[in-house]
């Protein structure tokens, strides 16, 4: 089997989409790893009520934590100058304002940019929606950072979603462990391939049709 990007590398590539001055929300999973690669001057928002916070504490620094400062991934973070706290109503006004870029994980993305993000509990069938519908719908730009294929090998970039939709026609860019794909009005545009991968190999791992960009290139990190 060909080498795919590690989660860290996928996150590193996704983080390149951000520029100083951007505001960004990072979903659980691969997106949260972006935090280490984000350029200075990007402010991270967490839907539980903080924007502009600093790196999370490592395990050997736990004496330093403020127990009232966690992100939505329940990780304790460092304060940063310029950070602000707010209630969750303000948080969802922010999330729906179109002022945030969202980098979220994904279970499936369709040709039309529909995305399935939230899982449904196997045990009791309750959907784990959380803030995902709001984050996907409200983003100025929605980037899905995920593995290209599911654990069983099935493609996650599909013609039509087979899993419950989280938000329709919302995705702008898909960053996977083998490709970068832009969602356009005329279809999915393959813009970048992981080192060692050919467009044909990526197409083989993808259910949806891919248009190969004229400026197709190897991913850079």
């Amino acid at each position, binding site marked *: 089997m060909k080498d795919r990007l590690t989660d860290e590398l996928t996150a590193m590539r996704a983080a390149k989409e951000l520029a100083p001055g951007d505001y960004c929300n990072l979903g659980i999973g691969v997106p949260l790893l972006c935090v280490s690669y984000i350029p200075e001057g990007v402010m991270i928002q967490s839907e539980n009520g903080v924007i502009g916070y600093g790196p999370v504490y490592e*395990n050997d620094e736990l004496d330093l934590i403020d*127990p009232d400062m*966690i992100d939505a991934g329940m990780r304790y973070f460092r304060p940063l100058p310029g950070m602000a706290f707010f*209630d969750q109503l303000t948080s969802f006004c922010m999330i729906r304002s179109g002022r945030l870029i969202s980098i979220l994980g994904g279970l499936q993305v369709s040709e039309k940019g529909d995305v399935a993000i939230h899982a449904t509990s196997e045990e009791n069938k309750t959907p784990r*929606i959380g803030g995902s519908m709001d984050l996907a719908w409200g983003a100025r730009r929605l980037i899905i950072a995920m593995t290209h294929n599911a654990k069983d090998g099935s493609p996650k970039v599909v013609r039509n979603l087979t899993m419950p939709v989280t938000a329709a026609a919302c995705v702008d860019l898909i960053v996977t462990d083998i490709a970068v794909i832009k969602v356009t009005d005329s279809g999915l545009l393959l813009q970048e391939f992981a080192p060692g991968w050919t467009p044909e190999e990526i197409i083989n791992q993808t259910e949806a049709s891919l248009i190969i960009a004229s400026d197709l290139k190897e991913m850079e990190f």
Partner: protein
Amino acid sequence: MINKVSTAAEAVAKIRDGDLVIANFWGPGSPAHLWRALLDHGAKDLTLCINNYVPKADVLREKGTPDPSLILAQTKKIMAAFTSIRAEEVSPIAEVINKRLQEGSLEFESMSHGNLVERLYAAALRLGGIYSPIGVGTVIEEGKEKRVINGVEYLFQEPIRPDVGLISAAKADRLGNLVYHGTARASNPIIAMASRYVIAEVFEIVDPGELDPDHIVTPGIFVDRVVRIPDDDPVGRERRREWIMASIKFREEQNAKAEAARRGDA
């Protein structure tokens, strides 16, 4: 003279069987002391409205981590934005939940986190309902009126007007004015505005005038009772670091296990 200071037991005594109770469920801003008082109070057939519903592992509960999911036996319905019952750590509570959901003795209403806070706000403003852009075409559309306004589809959402709001704040004065710290603000200010009867637990009570009027987040008018968490309480400010540390350590171990399993898979 307004004095809203009370014990937790006195404050929760007003809660009735069948009430809709709202509170943050876990983490900073969750009223752990009041959750326990509600458990001791024993009110039945409650509807719980909570941001997430994530029962604790037994091992953590044994170490003193507060776990409001114990209230389950008193609950007939859960309204939540997120629920997780870890397959790898199936607790007795998780089994009970799954069994009761199958039996139909427990109802679950799922929504987006944004739906939850906007429905609380609709209640705070005493609206009859709102048209939300969130959830169109998704599982939460089921049974909801859909309406196109200016070319965009929206779902009708009913207000959530809790009978009882349990909240947590950093400091209060005896008038009920509240200030919060960090992400423990959470949805507490909205809960206070939306609910009929509001109890706030705090780490500290100060004299009126000590809280800067520009910094007060929840004015006392929205708060019916103020309960000071005793310092030596397991969830009090002196002792809570103990179980927080235990909780972090446990999560790290779980994550390491999950990571190891994942790498094994790959």
